[in-house]
Structure formats: C-alpha cells, structure tokens
C-alpha cells in the first residue's frame, strides 16, 4: 500500500463500515437509555457526536438520571474511560515522531475499543488518515443510532424496547468474556466484580451507595488489588505467572 493519506483514508472507510454497523445497533439501545435519563433526541445525538464511548455514555446517562453532582460525573468519566488512557499510551508509540499535533488531537477524539484495535494492528507506523477514515463512517453510525434510539423508543412496542435494553450489556459481555477464556486472572476478576457488585446492591448500608459511586469504588478497589497481586509485565497483557503456567501446559 502506498503510504499516502488518500489511500489510507479509503482503507479506513472500508474497514470502518462493519464497525459503523455494529455501532448503529448498539447506539440504538444507548438512545433508549438516554431517553430514560430524560434527554432529548438532540441532546443524546450531541452527546454521541462529542463522545463516542458506549460504557462512558451509558454510565453518564445513569448518573444523569440519578441526579449526580458534576464532580461525581467527572470522576465517573475518569474511571469508566480509564482504559482509553492505556490505549492512547499504546497508540502514541505507534505514531511516527513527525505526526503533527493537530493529527494527534484528531486521533484522540475517537480512541474507541474498535478503532484502537484496528489501528494498532496496522503494519508499521500508523498513518493518521487510517483512523480518520474509520471515524468518518463510524461516528455518523454511532450518532444516528443514538438519535433513532431516542425517537423510536417511543414508537416501538414495549416487548421490543425490553429486548433492546440488553443490547449494550451483550456488547460489554463480548468485550470482557473472550479475554477471560484465555486468562484465569481476568475470569476470576469478572466473577469477583459481579459478585461484589451484587452484594453492594443488596446488602443493608452498602446498598445505599449510589450505583455510580458503586462502579467507581469497586473498579478502583478490585482493579487496584489485581494490579498489586497480578502485575502485568507482558505486552499482550497476560500476567506473568499465568503465562508461565500456560507455557508449561
């Protein structure tokens, strides 16, 4: 592939199309969540145009409907999107040193699980026009899906809305389960997270903690404990001991 922007942009458009279609379906259920939080179609679409982060937006809408403070909101965004910090760090190593500040700022606008995954797997240094191409198709898919979710949530029968409400959770499962199959540490973390989350929502006193605070608290506690107990030294992210165990098998 010639290393010019035009060719990479075109490739980005092509590779971004399946991402965009997936985003559209998921964003539809996000729109329903936005509507439940009391946002208008315009506000929800604006959010999706500006943010493009499913877990982040979903958590944000949950906090809005819970009447959270702005500080809680900022803390939540920090924690729930912390993985993008790691992705951006990895992506910064993938950029050529001559990459301009403007291009870096544009790439930073849309570091998502999918665009990051595809960008990082491109050979050699990353041409910024590759992610730009993916953004050009995936952001409209994300925003229009959100918009339709708000508008059609009204029109659709209750049974369909009920069904679509699990769509985002399904996507979350698709993100966390496959790595759990490869790593017993991650599998254990997921079980512990769900178990503690359940206890925190049911036990007296603990259940008074708002759902937003619960997510922040448990994330910092559990991920922090895991970082100390099972430090990740490998680039691929499989903890050291476990990899040794897998090699022994």
């Amino acid at each position, binding site marked *: 592939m010639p290393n010019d922007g035009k060719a990479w942009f075109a490739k980005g458009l092509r590779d971004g199309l399946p991402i965009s279609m997936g985003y559209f379906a998921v964003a539809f259920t996000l729109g329903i969540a936005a509507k439940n939080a009391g946002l208008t179609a315009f506000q929800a679409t604006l959010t999706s145009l500006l943010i493009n982060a499913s877990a982040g937006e979903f958590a944000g809408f949950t906090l809005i409907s819970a009447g959270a403070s702005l500080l809680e909101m900022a803390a939540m965004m920090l924690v729930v999107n912390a993985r993008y910090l790691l992705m951006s760090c990895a992506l910064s190593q993938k950029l050529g040193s001559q990459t301009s500040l403007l291009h870096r700022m544009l790439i930073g606008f849309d570091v998502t699980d999918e665009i990051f995954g595809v960008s990082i797997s491109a050979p050699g240094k990353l041409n910024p026009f590759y992610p730009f191409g993916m953004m050009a198709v995936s952001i409209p898919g994300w925003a229009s899906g959100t918009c339709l979710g708000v508008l059609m949530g009204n029109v659709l029968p209750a049974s369909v809305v009920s069904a679509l409400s699990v769509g985002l959770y399904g996507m979350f499962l*698709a993100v966390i*389960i496959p790595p759990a199959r490869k790593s017993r540490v991650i599998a254990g973390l997921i079980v512990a997270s769900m178990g503690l989350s359940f206890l925190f929502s049911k036990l007296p006193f603990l259940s008074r903690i708002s759902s937003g605070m619960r997510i922040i608290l448990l994330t910092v506690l559990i991920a922090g404990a895991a970082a100390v107990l099972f430090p990740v030294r490998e680039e691929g992210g499989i903890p050291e001991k476990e990899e040794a165990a897998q090699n022994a098998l």
Partner: protein
Amino acid sequence: MRYNAYLYILVMALVTYLIRVLPLTLIRREIRNVTIRSFLFYVPYVTLAVMTFPAILDATESTWSAAAALLAGIGLAWWGAGLFQVSVLSCAVVFLLERFLQI
C-alpha cells in the same frame, strides 16, 4: 435531572476527550510503572462487569428473560461470537422468551 443537561454533556465530553488526547499529545514515552500499567489493564474488565451485573436483571420486563440473556451472552462470547452478534442475539433471547413463553 439535577443540572442542565448540557452541563452534564459538557463535563462528559471534556473529561473523556482529555483522557484520550493527553497521552497522545504529552506522553511520548512508554509507561514503565508495572502497577499503573496493570491497573489500567484491568480497569475495563472490572468496570464493565460491575456495570453489567446485577443491573442487567432490572433492564427488561422480567428478571428471568434478562438472566437468560446474560447466560446466552456469556456463552456466545465465550465461543467466539463478535460484539454485534452477542448484542443482537442477547436481545433476541429476551424478545423470544417474553413473547412466546411469557416469562
């Protein structure tokens, strides 16, 4: 809603953008601290798991259809289905169970 919606959206957008853009523009060297790297590595799994359960059980009309969707989603993802497939098939499980078995 406690504050104006646009104020919430502004905070969401600003914090999210800063998280994404600062490493790309400021940090040109690799993070070497293993604990910080590990913490950031584990965060998405914990956050998404905590957000999914038990909240998914209250998301649909019936707890049982949601529980079935949860199990189906875990199974599908375990056996290699992608984001889109797991998402759509979980919805289908809820729809079919609620519609035809009325649970």
